[in-house]
């Protein structure tokens, strides 16, 4: 028989342990929501957390930056907009097709640009994101141009998903599933290889790791995460504009990852929560809203320099990731 304390320690070392507190919060939170508005904010947090999770796999674990990841969000968003309305594809199928398109696009684009490192990779991915925004803006026949286009509601077996409360549960489950997959990857041969690449590509190669292939794999995975987030974003808004893939959005995703904590799965949801909720909470300050937001971000990075979750965890003497 294991002692109670030993059993807890075993549980703590389980790769999915970090998700237990998150699952509890997800279940309890709706009991505290006074209005539909809160459901909507929480839904947005989950959506951006999915995108940030994917980007965290790329940045926090494999050490490769992307300043164009909102481009893949755009692909996912326009897939669920264009598919049903222009091509007559079922929304769920359009959702999957969007993810597949993002994967193929990431594969094709990733091969040449992932050879670049650091700032050069940053600028190349930035260019990619800008390029996609231009396509979404200019191909008005398909995308509605700068004004965007409406998105049909999703229908699952004759049941239209329109209540925000329903979306809350769908998005919470999708987020948890994304987090499980991310944690699975980290605790696997591929995950170890990716983390090794982050620290020394030379050593990784000498140990037999196909560095280019692994980088491409994680780039494709992170693109699919962003695409899924983009599709959800378009669906709960019922509308999509080229803003979904804008440069500012890409930066926002990077900020979520860094703020929450690079390499921290829980950090990704914390980072996205901060960047989704804070602007809403700060509207009371009217014209100073953005200044206060900027100051807050600076203060967090100065005082919690490894990101919110890793820094607080270290300060409390824990190893929570």
């Amino acid at each position, binding site marked *: 028989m294991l002692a109670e304390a030993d059993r807890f320690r075993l549980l703590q070392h389980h790769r999915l342990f970090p998700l237990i507190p998150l699952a509890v919060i997800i279940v309890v939170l709706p009991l505290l929501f006074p209005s539909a508005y809160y459901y909507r904010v929480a839904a947005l947090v989950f959506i951006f957390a999915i995108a940030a999770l994917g980007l965290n796999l790329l940045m926090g674990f494999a050490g490769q930056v992307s300043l164009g990841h909102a481009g893949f969000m755009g692909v996912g968003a326009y897939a669920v907009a264009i598919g049903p309305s222009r091509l007559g594809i079922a929304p769920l199928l359009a959702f999957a097709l969007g993810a597949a398109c993002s994967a193929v696009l990431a594969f094709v684009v990733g091969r040449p640009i992932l050879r670049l490192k650091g700032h050069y990779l940053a600028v190349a991915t930035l260019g990619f994101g800008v390029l996609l925004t231009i396509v979404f803006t200019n191909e008005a026949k398909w995308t509605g141009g700068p004004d965007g286009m409406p998105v049909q509601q999703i229908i699952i077996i004759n049941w239209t998903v329109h209540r925000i409360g329903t979306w809350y549960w769908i998005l919470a489950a999708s987020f948890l599933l994304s987090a499980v997959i991310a944690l699975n990857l980290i605790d696997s041969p591929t995950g170890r290889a990716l983390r090794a690449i982050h620290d020394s590509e030379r050593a990784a*190669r000498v140990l037999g790791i196909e560095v280019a292939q692994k980088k491409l794999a994680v780039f494709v995975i992170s693109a699919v995460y962003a695409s899924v987030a983009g599709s959800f974003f378009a669906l709960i808004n019922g509308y999509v504009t080229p803003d979904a893939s804008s440069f500012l959005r890409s930066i926002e995703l990077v900020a979520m990852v860094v703020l929450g904590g690079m390499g921290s799965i829980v950090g990704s949801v914390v980072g996205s929560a901060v960047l989704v909720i804070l602007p809403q909470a700060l509207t009371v300050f009217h014209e100073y809203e953005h200044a206060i937001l900027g100051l807050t971000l600076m203060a967090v990075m100065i005082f919690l320099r490894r990101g919110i979750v890793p820094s607080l965890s270290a300060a409390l003497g824990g190893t929570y990731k």
Partner: protein
Amino acid sequence: MTALAAERISIAFGGVRALDGVSFEAAAGIVFSIIGPNGAGKTTLFNVISGLCVPDDGRVWLGGEDVTALAPERLARRGLSRTFQNLQIFSHLTTLENVMVGRHRHESTGLLADLLHLPAVSWQNRITRDAALKALARVGLAAMAQRPAGSLAYGDLKRLEIARALATEPTVLLLDEPAAGCNPTETKNIETMIRSIVADDITVVLVEHDMRLVMNISDRIHVLANGHTLAEGDAAAIRANPAVIEAYLGAHSAALEPASAVR
């Protein structure tokens, strides 16, 4: 049988000839040392052999196969591993995980299995962890397994790199200055470790500045100077070679004396 051979290797960086027609043959299961003054081209030769540099001319043979300009990851899969003079530790990983990465070429789960954490992944993780623990125990770092690698002392990091390279199960192991920065006790430990590695039929190719270690342990010594081969032979022949003594004039000439004489 020849485990590793270099044939007329030449490489130049911006007009400077770092290596000029260097050839050697290392027989299987021996300690083959490459020595020479700073800038002689020892590390460059290692980089060429391990695939990190492509030579302008010449060939590299591993176990009788031409492996010239093969990528490092392909060479690793054929049984060549190395350590680095300036350590290349995965500092965000634990000590154990560093060595687990060294098992990568023996791991067989696919990306999809990894993402879904299929039972094969748990099984693979367990096998990898056990093999890595064994490699750590071998270099005396088992107690450090769960420590972040970045927190280890310098001497421990040196041994960690050797454990990680051994975890790949190489036939040929390149050690780039394993004793650099080590105190006499640590150096002695490294000597013992190298002997045990060779006892396992692994060919060790050693670049090292510590002459006492080199003279004690080498079956054969290859001397480089300014990118050229100066001499090759066993420890006694190298010690007696006038050209070698010339290249090591001054403080270093004492280092070439038999180990007993230095003590």
